[in-house]
C-alpha cells in the first residue's frame, strides 16, 4: 500500500520536478511521522541489516549480518567507533624488511586491500582488521580531501601516501577541525597542492603567494563556492547564488599559508638539508625514498611568512574576525590557526560536508531535510561540540531517509555503487582469501584505476574521480539529478569494470585451504591472488539454485531483487548442468548480479 501511494507521488514529482524542491524536502518527514520514527531501532530483518552494512562497510557477509541483527544499529556503531585503527605504514615497513622486496605505490594498495577486506595482516601477527566503518569513512574522506599518486612526486612516496591515509583513518571519528589542520600540514598535501615552501610576496622577483591550496581548501574541503542554507540548498538573492568568497579571500588565505616547509626532525649532516631562512627552497628530503619526514607535519620558517599584510578571510554572520580580516603581524602557526577557525565556523561547512558524506555512503540526491539533520549533528553533537565526525556519521547512517529512503523515493533514492566497492563487496561476501597473506589482486597491469576508473589515492586530479554534481546524460540530467559515480562509467571503463569483475567471479576460487583457478594467475603462481570461498554455495547451487539466489539476494541486493530479475537468473542457472554445475552456477550468479542494473544501484 505504501509503495503504491508512493509511486503515484513520484509521478507527480516527475511532472513538477522543476519547481518542487521545497515540497520534496518535506515529503519524507510527513510520511515518517506516520510510522517510521524509530529509524535506529533495527534492524528487524536480515535484509535491513545487509542494506545497512552495504552503506557502512566494504560489503556485508553472513557473519556481519548476524552480528548486526544481534546487537542493533546503535550498539554496532558504538562497537565500530571503539575498534582500534588499522593502518598502512606498518605493512609497508614489514614488506620493506623482507630482503629483496621494494615498497611501491602498489604495496600501499596491498595494505588498503587487507584493511578494506579485513583479511589477516602479516605485519600485525596475522590479526584481522575489524574497523570496517572507520576504513570506509577513511575511503570516503580520501575522495573529498584528495591527494594522489598521479602526482609525479607522490608516485614515488608510498610511505607519504600511506601516512596520509592513516591520518584520514585516525581522524575518521574525530573532529573536523583537527582533520582540517592535519590535512593542511601534511607534506603530501603540501606537495600535491603546492603550498609547501610557499613564500610571501617578493615584488623584486614578481613572486606572489601560491593560491593553489587556499583556493581548493575553500572550494572542495570546507565551504564550497556558494552560500548555503542550513539544508545545503544555495541561498539565492535575486535568483542568483551568492559566492562564498572572492579573489581577495583567496589571496588573503594564500598569504596566511606562507612560510610552511619541511619538518626539521631528523635533518642534518648525513640526512637531508635542514630548512632555514637561507635554505628555504633548497631543503627537505627531495625525492629520497622513505624519509620519515614525509609523515611529519610541515613547520614554519617565519622569514618567509607574510607578517605585514592584512588578510581578507571569509565573511559570514557571526564571524569572529572583524569583517573577516586577519590583522597583520601574526606568526605562521597563529595565523594558520585563526584562518582554519575562520573556515571551520563558516555556516556552510556542516551542510557542505554533510552532503558530500551522504553521497559517499547513502544517496546521491539527499533531500534538503536530510542534509539539514546531518548538518545539525555536525554543528552540535548533542554536547555542544561542533565538527564531531562520529556524530555526523551516526546521523547519516541512522537517519530515517538512510534507513527507509528506498520506500519513499523508489525511483531515485540511492547511488551508483563505486566499482571498487562492488569488488570489495564480492570478496567480503564470498570470504575471499589468498594462499599468501600478501594480496596483489588490486594491483594488476595496468593499474586498477585503469580498470575501475578509480583506485585508492589515485585520482587524476584534486576534483576526485567524479564530481559531486555530475549528471549522467539523458533522463538523469533532464531530471536535474546528481549522479557522481556515473562520471567514471565511460564506455571503456564500463567494459573494463565488468571484465575485471568477470575475472574475480570466474577465475579464482577455493574450498577451505584448497585453492583452484581457471585463469592466468599473478606473478607468484596465484599465491597472492584472492580466491572466492565456494564450497557451501557450490553444494547449494548444485541441488537448489533458487536457494542460492535467495542467499545472494540477501548478501548483494539486501533482499531487493525483483521477481523478473530472479526469474532471469534462475533460468540461466538451471540451464547449467554437469559435474561442475554447482561452481559454475554460483559464478554466473555472482557475475550477473554484480553487473546488473538492480545491484549496481545501491538503494
Amino acid at each position, binding site marked *: 500500500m505504501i509503495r*503504491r501511494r508512493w509511486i503515484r507521488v*513520484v*509521478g507527480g514529482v*516527475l511532472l513538477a*520536478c*522543476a519547481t518542487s524542491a521545497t515540497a520534496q524536502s518535506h515529503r519524507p518527514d510527513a510520511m515518517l511521522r506516520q510510522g517510521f520514527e524509530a529509524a535506529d531501532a533495527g534492524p528487524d530483518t536480515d535484509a535491513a541489516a545487509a542494506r545497512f552494512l552495504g552503506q557502512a562497510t566494504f560489503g556485508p557477509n553472513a557473519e556481519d549480518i548476524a552480528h548486526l541483527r544481534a546487537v542493533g544499529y546503535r550498539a554496532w556503531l558504538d562497537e565500530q567507533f571503539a575498534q582500534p585503527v588499522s593502518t598502512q605504514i606498518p605493512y609497508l615497513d614489514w614488506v620493506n624488511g623482507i630482503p629483496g622486496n621494494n615498497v611501491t605505490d602498489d604495496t600501499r594498495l596491498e595494505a588498503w586491500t587487507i584493511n578494506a577486506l579485513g583479511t589477516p595482516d602479516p605485519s600485525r601477527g596475522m590479526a584481522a582488521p575489524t574497523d570496517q566503518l572507520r576504513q570506509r569513512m577513511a575511503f570516503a574522506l580520501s575522495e573529498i580531501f584528495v591527494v594522489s599518486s598521479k602526482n*609525479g612526486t607522490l608516485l614515488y612516496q608510498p610511505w607519504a601516501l600511506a601516512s596520509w591515509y592513516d591520518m584520514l583513518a585516525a581522524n575518521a571519528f574525530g573532529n573536523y577541525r583537527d582533520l582540517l589542520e592535519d590535512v593542511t600540514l601534511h607534506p603530501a598535501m603540501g606537495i600535491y*597542492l*603546492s603550498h609547501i*615552501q610557499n613564500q610571501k610576496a617578493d615584488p623584486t*622577483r*614578481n*613572486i*606572489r603567494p*601560491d*593560491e*593553489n591550496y587556499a583556493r581548493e581548501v575553500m*572550494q572542495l574541503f570546507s565551504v564550497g*563556492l556558494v552560500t548555503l542554507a542550513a539544508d545545503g540548498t544555495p541561498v539565492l538573492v535575486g535568483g542568483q547564488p551568492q*559566492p562564498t568568497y572572492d*579573489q581577495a579571500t583567496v*589571496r588573503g588565505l594564500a598569504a596566511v599559508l606562507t612560510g610552511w616547509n619541511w619538518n626539521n626532525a631528523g635533518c642534518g649532516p648525513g640526512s637531508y638539508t635542514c630548512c632555514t631562512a637561507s635554505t628555504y*627552497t633548497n631543503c627537505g628530503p627531495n625525492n629520497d625514498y622513505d624519509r620519515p619526514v614525509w609523515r611529519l607535519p610541515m613547520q614554519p620558517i617565519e622569514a618567509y611568512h607574510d607578517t605585514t599584510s592584512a588578510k581578507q578571510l571569509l565573511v559570514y554572520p557571526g564571524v569572529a574576525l572583524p569583517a573577516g580580516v586577519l590583522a597583520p603581524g601574526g606568526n605562521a602557526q597563529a595565523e594558520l590557526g585563526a584562518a582554519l577557525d575562520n573556515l571551520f565556523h563558516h555556516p556552510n561547512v556542516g551542510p557542505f560536508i554533510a552532503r558530500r558524506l551522504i553521497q559517499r555512503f547513502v544517496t546521491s540526491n539527499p533531500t534538503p531535510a536530510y542534509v539539514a539533520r546531518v548538518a545539525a549533528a555536525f554543528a552540535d553533537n548533542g554536547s555542544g561540540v561542533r565538527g564531531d565526525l562520529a556524530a555526523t556519521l551516526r546521523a547519516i547512517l541512522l537517519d530515517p531517509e538512510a534507513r527507509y529512503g528506498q520506500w519513499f523515493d*523508489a*525511483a531515485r533514492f*540511492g*547511488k551508483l555503487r563505486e566499482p571498487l566497492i562492488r569488488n570489495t563487496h564480492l570478496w567480503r561476501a564470498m570470504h575471499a582469501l589468498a594462499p599468501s597473506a600478501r594480496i596483489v589482486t588490486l594491483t594488476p597491469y595496468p593499474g586498477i584505476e585503469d580498470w575501475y576508473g578509480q583506485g585508492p589515492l589515485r585520482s*587524476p*586530479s584534486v*576534483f576526485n574521480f567524479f564530481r559531486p554534481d555530475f549528471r*549522467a546524460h*539523458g*533522463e*538523469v*540530467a533532464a*531530471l*536535474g539529478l546528481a549522479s557522481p559515480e*556515473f562520471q567514471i*562509467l*565511460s*564506455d*571503456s571503463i*564500463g*567494459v573494463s569494470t*565488468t*571484465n575485471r569483475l*568477470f*575475472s574475480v567471479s*570466474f577465475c579464482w576460487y577455493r574450498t577451505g585451504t584448497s585453492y583452484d583457478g581457471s585463469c592466468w594467475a599473478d606473478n607468484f603462481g596465484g599465491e597472492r591472488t584472492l580466491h572466492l570461498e565456494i564450497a557451501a554455495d557450490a553444494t547449494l547451487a548444485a541441488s537448489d539454485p533458487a536457494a542460492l539466489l535467495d542467499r545472494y539476494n540477501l548478501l548483494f541486493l539486501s533482499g531487493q531483487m*525483483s*521477481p*523478473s530479475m530472479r526469474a532471469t537468473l534462475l*533460468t*540461466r542457472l538451471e540451464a547449467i548442468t554437469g559435474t561442475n554445475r554447482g561452481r559454475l552456477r554460483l559464478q554466473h550468479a555472482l557475475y*550477473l548480479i554484480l*553487473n546488473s*542494473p*538492480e545491484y*549496481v*544501484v545501491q538503494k
Partner: protein
Amino acid sequence: MSSRRRFLRQGLASLAGLGLTSAFGNLRVLAAAANQYVFPVGDYKALVCVFLNGGNDSFNSIVPYSSTAYADYRSSRTVLIGSGGLAFDQATLAANALTPLAASGGLPGGLPSDGASYGTHPALAELRALFNDGKAAIIANVGTLLHPTSQAAYQAGSVAVPPQLFSHSDQTTYWQTSRPDDANANGWGGRIADRLHSANSGAIPMCISLSNNNLFQRGDTVDAYGVSPGGVEKMSYLGDGPESWVLPPNAAGVAAWNALLEADTQQHVFERAYAGRMRSTVANYEIVDAALGNAPPLSTAFPDTPLGNQLRMAAQLIQVRGALGMARQVFYASVGNYDTHSYQVDDQHANLTQLSQALAAFHAATVELGIDDAVTTFTASDFGRSLAVNGDGTDHGWGGHHFVVGGAVRGRRFYGAMPSLRANANPDDTGYGQIIPTTALDQYAATLAAWLGVSASDIADIFPALSRFESPNLRFLG
C-alpha cells in the same frame, strides 16, 4: 508489476511532454532542424579538441624576443631558467622563432599587433615547424567572456564576467560549454553535434572521446562514445573479451545479460541510465571494432604517449569514416599535468614535448590519409596562467594563447591581439597578473563550427553571446 510498468510508460511520456517546454527545451527546434544538414558523399570534416588539463602557461609557450616586449616578459619572469627561474633567455627564443606571413587577402599578417617578434618554447619544435609551414595558426589571448571586457570595466566591476574566474572546475566547464551564464549548459561540441549528427548515416555517435567522459561533447540528444586509445575491448561474458575462454559457449548467459539490461524494464532512474550506457557501449563497440578490423595499419609513427596514443586512435577512426558512415565528427582528446604551480620548468617541457610531437604525428597521419584539409585540431585549456610566479611555478590566470592545426588552417599567422607581459602597470591584466582575454571563446568556437558546416543561424543559437563581439568569424579557417 503491471501498475509499475504502466507508471513507467506514463512517467516517461509525461517527461517527454514536459520536455517540450522545459527540460528538453530544444527538442522541437532540433526536430525541425533534423534534416537540414545533408552533405555530398565524400564531403567529410572533423574537429579534434585537445584539452590541456590544468591550464597551460601559454605566456611561456609563445614568448616575445624582440627587445621591448622581451623586457616586459622579463619584468614578470625575472629569473632565467639557468638560475632557477622560469624565463627563457632571448637567444633561445630567437633560435625558436615564428616567422609569420605578410598580411594578405584581409588576413592578419606580419608581426602580431604588438609589433613584437615571437619564438616558442623549445619543446614545441614540431608545432613551430607546422606554423612556419603554414599548417598552424596561433589564436591570441582567448578566454571565457560574457562581454567584451576592458581593464577599466573589469576593475570597476561594471561588466559581467564568468563566475569563479581562476577556478579549475568552473573555467574548464565554461571552456567546454561556452555558457558561463548557464551552469547546466551542454558542451558546445555536443550542441554542434545535436545539429549535425543527422548528416551521418552511421549509427555510432558523432562525438567520440579518446579520453574521459567530458562535458564538451555532451548535447541534448547526442552523447559521446568513448574509444580507448588501445582499441576496443569487448565484454568477456559476451565472448571475445579477456578470459572469455574460461567459459564454455555462453548463449544462455548472453540471453540473461540482455534480459537484465533490456530497455525500459528498470524501475530506478539510475538503473535505466546504467542499463542504457551498457547497451549502447556494446552496440557501438561492435560497429567500431568491425570497421577498425578491416583497415590497413597507418604508416605514420605516433609517439607512445597518452596524447600520442589518443590521437593515433582518432586517426584510425578517421581512416574508417566511410565504414562508420560518418560525414561530420567531433573528437576529444585530453592530457593533464598542466597545473604548474611548481616544477614548471621540467613539467612544462615534458608537457609541450608530448603535445608538439602528438599534434605533428596526427597531422602527418591526416596527410597520409589524404584528408588533412578536412581535419582541424585545436587546443583548449582551463585558463592561461598568471604572469606573477609562485617561486618555481605560476598561478591560475584567465586568457591564453591557443593553436589550430590542419590543412584548412590559414596558417603562419597570429589572430587576435598579443597582450603585454609587463609585471607592473600592465594595460592588459586584471591588476594582479592575470591577462584579460581579448578574443572570446565564443569567437574561437564559432569559427571552428562555421568551418565544420554549421549554419549562421544555428551558430547564433549555439553561441548566444557571440553577437556581443566584433567578429563572429576570426577567419583562421578557409
